[in-house]
């Protein structure tokens, strides 16, 4: 375990070759991915419980997805700014 961590820290300390901004974009896409997954899951669950509210729930879901999508897209734009 400690040897594994030491290998990783050694690789990071030796420097990363290639595109660091791509790593940044990849990391920034984790959060919105999880967030959107949770949000859509809850919407599907809510629609299954109360089908008469399906349209209202879908509107709220689209609004929420637009909010969390911004963070991944800011990372994507930052990829091009940082290069």
């Amino acid at each position, binding site marked *: 375990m400690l040897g594994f961590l030491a290998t990783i820290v050694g690789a990071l300390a030796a420097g990363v070759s290639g595109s660091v901004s791509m790593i940044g974009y990849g990391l920034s896409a984790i959060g919105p991915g999880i967030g959107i997954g949770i949000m859509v899951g809850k919407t599907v669950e809510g629609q299954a419980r109360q089908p008469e509210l399906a349209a209202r729930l879908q*509107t709220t879901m*689209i*609004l929420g997805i*637009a909010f969390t*999508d*911004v963070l991944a*897209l*800011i990372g*994507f*734009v930052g990829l091009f700014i940082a290069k």
Partner: protein
Amino acid sequence: MSAGLALQRGFSHSLGSPKEIFEGKCVIGHGTLCLNRESLLIFLIVVVLSVLLIVATSRAQLVPRGLQNIVESTYEFLRRDIVLGVMGPEGEKYGPYLVSLFLFAFLASALEVVPLLQFPTTSRMAIPAMLAMISWGIYNWAGIRAHGFFGYLRAIMFPPGVPKVLYVIVTPIEFAAAVILRPLTLAIRLFANFFAGHLLLLVFVIGTAYVLQNGATIAFAPIALAASVAIIGLEIFIAAVQAYVFALLTAAYVRLASAEEH
């Protein structure tokens, strides 16, 4: 094969110098006062939208049919969902602006899939920034009209129900969120969605052309072509969703700014 070589001569030099993709070239005029591709497309959108809406509602009939029906049902859908749904009956005066915003943002983004003009004008920061600034002006004006200038500042910076000690932290964050972050995220949301979407579409379409050139990889061409068509559909859907979200958020910010605190 020579067609493939011609394709390669056509786009490979711009792939080698990516700055050329991002910097606009002036079509009419030069220097500061130039009309480039984005400006000409904006004028085209305004002309097309004006002609469409004026033709649809001239000689309006009581029972709409055809073009008048389409325009009226679009307006009714937006009015029901955005204007009345978010702002209630006093939102009627913002109705025309929000519908124009939606139609303009949707057409400006959907221009990506129109066959000869494949460039979404919202994929360069000028147009989303301008729309966000106009929305910023409108929701701040609505707040100032409802509360007065200092009353509006007090309403933003001191939300009720917060213990007085936390105002040191909450006030700068709330002020920055209302005045700086909201237009910034509105603009970035619209811009980044179409910047990324346009690049994605380009990757798949150029990928299809590239894969067709080499005999070894020609088996992937149907996959790339199917993906290009699917992404065209996705881009139309995303254009509609992002325009709707822009208008919806503007309405929500107007409501938040002019809401009476109790």
